[in-house]
């Protein structure tokens, strides 16, 4: 469910598969609104897909907060993914290509990082994980 928490901030909770798609569609709309090109849009929503799905799979859900930000005259989309799941024990490992604790490809986190302009991950075992990303319009 999206709610407006601020003039240009929106929040969505990810609880089901369907929420990942809703989230992606909305973020695409925001990206289009600031005039982001199709390649960067696709990179952004693919990263969003990975991070939102991770929250769903490993943390049982979480919140996504979207905001339009500016750096000088360039605009970008900032997204925060926060969950209260089990946290990640070894972040460096989790960020490696091919590392997975499931039986997946282990490309989600490192891939998402490559697809966006800024990527920041914080995680505390037993507390949860917060990932912040920014994709600049021309970034």
């Amino acid at each position, binding site marked *: *469910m999206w709610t407006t928490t601020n003039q240009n901030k929106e929040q969505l909770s990810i609880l089901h598969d369907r929420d990942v798609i809703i989230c992606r569609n909305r973020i695409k709309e925001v990206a289009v609104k600031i005039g982001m090109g199709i*390649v960067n849009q696709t*990179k952004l929503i693919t990263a969003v897909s990975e991070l939102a799905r991770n929250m769903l799979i490993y943390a049982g859900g979480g919140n996504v907060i979207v905001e339009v930000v500016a750096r000088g005259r360039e605009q970008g989309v900032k997204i925060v993914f926060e969950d209260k799941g089990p946290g990640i024990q070894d972040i460096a490992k989790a960020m490696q290509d091919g590392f997975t604790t499931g039986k997946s490809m282990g490309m989600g986190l490192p891939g998402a990082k490559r697809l966006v302009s800024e990527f920041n991950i914080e995680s505390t075992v037993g507390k949860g994980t917060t990932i912040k990303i920014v994709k600049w319009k021309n970034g």
Partner: protein
Amino acid sequence: MTRNIVTALQENQDRILDQWVNQRELSEDFGGNFNSFDDLKAQSSELLTAVLENMTAENITDLYASDLEPLIEYVSGLTLSRAKQGFSPRETATYIFSLKDALLKVLGELITEDPKELYRSTLEISKFIDNIGIVSFETFIRGREEVILGQADEMAELSTPVIKVWEGIIAMPIIGTLDSARTQVVMENLLQGIVETESSIAILDISGVPAVDSLVAQHLIKTVNAIRLLGADCVISGIRPEIAQTVVHLGIDLSKMVTKATLASALRYAYGILQLEVRKAGKEKSNL
């Protein structure tokens, strides 16, 4: 509005609540929608508490203040639960707006000496409650949008037709998201189509898939593997340029699959494998 007035309102919470729930329009319009007067009073008391607890002399003119988030969350939740119970957005908004009358009535009783202050505070409270009403509307609309989006997705996902494009070649266009459930349907239909039409090449067209993330990629790989087990070949077509760039950055290796940019080039490839030639009538021979 001064801090004193905010405090005074908080101190008079019970009086405001009584004033509110005993309004004629509230009992007439909404009496039927609540199971009992007690329900109405309990719900109203919660909302009033949320308003009075979170409203401050500062944020009353700034709905986006972060300390108002609990109130906004509460109103969103209230709207959603009322929407589920079948209240119209009008009913919910009118219900919220009716709080204004009660607040203003008590405000008038609290500020008796200073008409200017009363006027200023009245304006601020009016605007504040109006904004809460708007939040409720927004929530309602978003809720609807989500339902619509969900339906659109479901519809798109229902249709996964297998098309026989040529003797020995079938194609399946995928439109929408390729999640686990849908991959299952796609795979079953494709495998069955291959057997039924005795085809040896299946083209999976993903032009209508919005993004290829690691999950979709995995599903594609699984589907291709299953098709190979039947002894057939699979071509993935409709890889748009932006998808190609994204997949490369994501770090996923699709090079073990045959991929083509367009359905036409996938068909050309399939003809090649089946040693078929397409050429202009009358001409002896031309390159495909």
